[in-house]
């Protein structure tokens, strides 16, 4: 039986830790939640809906590419941005949020966060208001 070694320094080689790729993806996802102009991760929404149903996180694996090398981490994030928003502002906000999240929680060195805007579409709320406008215009014409 080994005795309590609480006062002894931990050997340097045992103090290293590894953050799994899926954890970085989760942190990325949480950091991006609620950022104005961010609609969703790129990929088929039908597939995403199915993934939601079965509780799968696989869809994020397709849209968040993590490259780790020692304590360094690089990310490529593929997103759909809100139509009408400034993609640059959306992407910069994502980079800031994800950078701070990963540095704060993991202590890793974030080498790069590349944001790729693959498409643009309406937010759900904007879609419904657009529909209302179309109906209103129709009434005026009639």
């Amino acid at each position, binding site marked *: 039986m080994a005795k309590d070694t609480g006062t002894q320094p931990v050997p340097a080689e045992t103090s290293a830790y590894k953050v799994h790729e899926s954890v970085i993806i989760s942190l990325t996802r949480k950091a991006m939640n609620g950022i104005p102009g961010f609609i969703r991760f790129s990929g088929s929404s039908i597939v995403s809906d199915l993934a939601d149903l079965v509780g799968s996180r696989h869809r994020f694996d*397709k849209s968040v590419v993590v490259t780790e090398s020692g304590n360094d981490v*690089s990310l490529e994030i593929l997103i759909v941005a809100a139509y009408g928003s400034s*993609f640059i502002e959306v992407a910069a906000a994502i*980079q800031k949020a994800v950078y701070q999240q990963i540095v704060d929680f993991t202590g890793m060195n974030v080498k790069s966060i590349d944001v*790729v*805007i693959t498409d643009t579409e309406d937010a759900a709320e904007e879609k419904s208001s657009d529909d209302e406008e179309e109906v209103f215009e129709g009434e005026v014409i009639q």
Partner: protein
Amino acid sequence: MSNTQQARSAADPVSTVPGAYEVDGNPVGSIRVLDGAISTIVKRTVLGVKGVARLSGSTLIDEFADLVRSKRMQDRSIQIEHRGAGVAVTIAINPYYGFKFPALIAEIQPKIVDAVLKMTGITVSSVNVEIRGIEELPEESDSEQDNAKESE
């Protein structure tokens, strides 16, 4: 499947734009806009102009493409060509009968330039418009029917 998405991001034509978040004066990464996103902006801008019926092509195929979220129709009617830091846009449209083409095109061109610049920061150096067909105004047929009813 993850490789598919990675392959798409690497293979698709893309524009890199400035404005990335900076730490200690250095950008933490790049911001890239795929041509597909520019095409969507162009499509929505063009279809928002009064007098434009639709992008050229088959309506049936267009509707089916919308259903399955395919961009084939859009890709056929909108071409994005990279020229230096900017892009040149070529679109094929079907206007409604009754709208004069020069005035229509003169309205479309600056709207596309403004929309793409505002959303992506990318400069559109030229907008070429092809008129491939012409459509009847649906409102006209309705009003004609109303007029016919009134005369009866």
